[in-house]
């Protein structure tokens, strides 16, 4: 038994647990609703989950370093409206997207600088950025949405490649890259090391300031990518977009088994976490459960996931 609990087994059990949770949820909704297990509905779930899923990747990196990023929703809104105004100015689509991503990356980088050089707790630094980016977006647009884009831009939300919606493809590409970075590169290894034990990481010669800056920058960049996807889908960039997205992203990450204490987690887990939230919303909608009650259910799932983690941690010690 002791041998069994040794090693990463517990973490693996946790990962399978989340996966089976997702399967069980799908089974449940399949039984309860004839509309759930259809190709179109499942693709719909994947598409609806894709934006939160993409943002959650950045959140996972940040949380593995034992940090948190509360600004993702506001950064999404701000980079969305900047990109939209560039597109409305008649500049080519790639330029607009690059500017949008640049705004997101810069906001994230600023978070990183505040955390690494400013030595401000991530919670406070990104709380500040949450307000700053939101305000900047509202100020920039005078509070009004920027709407109406070319079909070629909207293809990013409405298009399909081999019957698979483009947003789902973007999501998959992001996850593959993130997974490879986290498991196969120096930066990934350092991400775990910083979150696992910052002091020991410093004494192993890791330039933790540099890597924190990059990681928060990536979180901002992925929020901006979320903005591209959302703007294309809604055909409108809104300064009030993305409110509460940070909570969904944190929830997906935590449900997926990433420890808020840092040093542990996988993006695959986060993907499952994001899908669990997506399936719950979709299934409850199909069953006609009010959105108020949906919030209660999702909150309970988050707490349940954390309770599970805490218990596993205690067992290990």
């Amino acid at each position, binding site marked *: 038994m002791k041998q069994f609990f*040794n090693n*990463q087994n517990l973490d693996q059990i946790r990962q399978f647990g989340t996966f089976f949770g997702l399967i069980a949820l799908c089974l449940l909704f399949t039984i309860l609703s004839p509309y759930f297990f259809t190709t179109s509905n499942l693709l719909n779930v994947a598409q609806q989950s894709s934006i939160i899923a993409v943002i959650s990747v950045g959140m996972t990196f940040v949380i593995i370093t034992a940090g948190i990023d509360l600004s993702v929703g506001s950064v999404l809104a701000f980079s969305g409206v900047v990109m939209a105004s560039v597109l409305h100015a008649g500049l080519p689509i790639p330029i607009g997207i690059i500017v949008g991503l640049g705004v997101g990356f810069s906001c994230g980088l600023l978070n990183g600088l505040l955390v690494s050089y400013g030595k401000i707790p991530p919670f406070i630094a990104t709380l500040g950025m949450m307000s700053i980016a939101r305000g900047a977006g509202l100020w920039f647009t005078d509070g009004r949405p920027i709407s109406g884009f070319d079909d070629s831009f909207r293809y990013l939300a409405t298009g399909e490649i081999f019957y698979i919606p483009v947003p789902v493809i973007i999501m998959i590409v992001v996850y593959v890259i993130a997974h490879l970075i986290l498991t196969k590169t120096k930066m*990934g290894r350092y991400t*775990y090391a910083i979150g696992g034990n910052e*002091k020991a990481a410093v*004494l192993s*010669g890791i330039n933790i300031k540099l890597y924190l800056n990059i990681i928060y920058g990536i979180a901002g960049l992925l929020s901006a990518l979320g903005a591209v996807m959302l703007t294309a889908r809604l055909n409108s960039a809104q300064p009030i977009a993305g409110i509460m997205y940070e909570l969904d992203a944190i929830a997906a990450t935590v449900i997926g088994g990433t420890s808020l204490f840092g040093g542990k987690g996988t993006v695959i887990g986060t993907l499952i976490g994001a899908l669990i939230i997506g399936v719950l919303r979709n299934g409850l909608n199909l069953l006609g459960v009010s959105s108020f009650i949906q919030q209660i259910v999702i909150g309970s799932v988050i707490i349940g996931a954390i309770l599970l983690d805490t218990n596993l941690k205690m067992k290990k010690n």
Partner: protein
Amino acid sequence: MDKSCVLRMEHISKRFPGVLALDSVQFDLFKGEVHVLLGENGAGKSTLMKILSGAYEKDEGNIFIDEHKTEINGPSHAQELGIGIIYQEFNLNPYLSVAENIFLGREPTILPGIIDWKKIYRDAQELLDSLNVDIDSKQIVETLGVAMKQMVEVAKALSLNARILIMDEPTASLSNNEIEALFKTIKKLQTEGVAIIYISHRLEEIFRIGDRVTVLRDGRYINTKPVSDLTKDEMVKMMVDRDLDNHIPKVKADIGDVVLEVENISVKDRLHDISFKLRKGEILGIAGLMGAGRTRLAKTLFGAERIVSGKITVDGIEVRMNSPRDSINAGIGLVTEDRKNEGLILDLSVKQNVCLPNMSKFITNGWINSGKENQAVDQYIDKLNIKTPTRNQLAIFLSGGNQQKVVLSKWLCSDAKIFIFDEPTRGIDVGAKTEIYQLMNQLVAKGVAIIMISSEMPEILGMSDRILIMRNGRIAGELSDSEASQEEIMNYALGEAYEAVL
């Protein structure tokens, strides 16, 4: 003096995982005396006092208070029994007033929950006045100096009717005037019948205020004698006079050229004018009491402290140590004192820990090359005989000795040619200790140079080719292995020999 015995501790034993911290120790205390508890780092003084103050539970033995057999069930019970302890780090809330601190948790009240402010300030002031100290009970503790904070602690203990007062190195951070004031207070307490257990390394002080001395060594009781019957030399001898069994397998290596030269290094308020040379194949031991600056020196050489002045040269080339990365690149590896918090990332695997300081070695076209990593790690697991089921085992599940070997592997893997060991065998069982010593022998045989910080005399004397002794952030003395003895080292560490030189 009234010779009634207020405290008697008999056959006290305390075991921690892997060590017997106290082995049938005895101690007694008369009313109104100052009884000095003397011993090296790790002799068991703190453990004994923690048992007395209820912070630890004893495994064996009896405690008699006023000749009544008593079981001490925790810190609050110890307080009720009249035992007060003043730690080196004060337990005061810096943002509350002196009076609030003294009566914290037992504030006088007018109505339930409503503090009687007049009474709390008046009572506190009376206590402070009785100690002849010039403190206003309304003052905020943060604004007080160290000596005054200490007096607040004393007042707090007295307000709890302490009849036995434990003072742990009370003069460590006091100026001469403050020490005089403290001694006056101690004398006054004595005349009021308070018995004081006084822990200090400053022998001069012991002669000034101590009545009797009890010496502990390696968790054992050595002797109790009146201070007036002893000389300084005799005290030092009692502290260190252990048989040096030769189970330490030192193998002398050929000593070569200078690899590291440190010239007049200073770190603000902590290290002053440190200079020494380290040669290939040499083990340079660094001895000293806790707080002498040894760990600070190790961190400084490893780029983790800001150097204000001085120069570090590695292989004849001046190196700026602005970060651990600079030191690692210069070929230095630090095996920290605190493995779990500074040496390892416990949630990473053996493999991931070993490869961490030198990841670039295992990167091919931007990707981690697992094959290379595995090969390297397996080699160290084999060579150092690391006991782990697989290279993917998390470091948290290894024993202390094996964790230490993983830390060693980190620096072997980063091709370090200068190893700094800070307390290399702390918390490691005897068998694994010998293995660590043998690994050090193998390292120096290959031409590696070692700096070894240690509080264990047998280790320092057994393994070092040369010994530096630090005191108050300075190098207080240097001894070759032929002239070094426990007494000699202790003299320098305590400051006797150093002051004689001045």
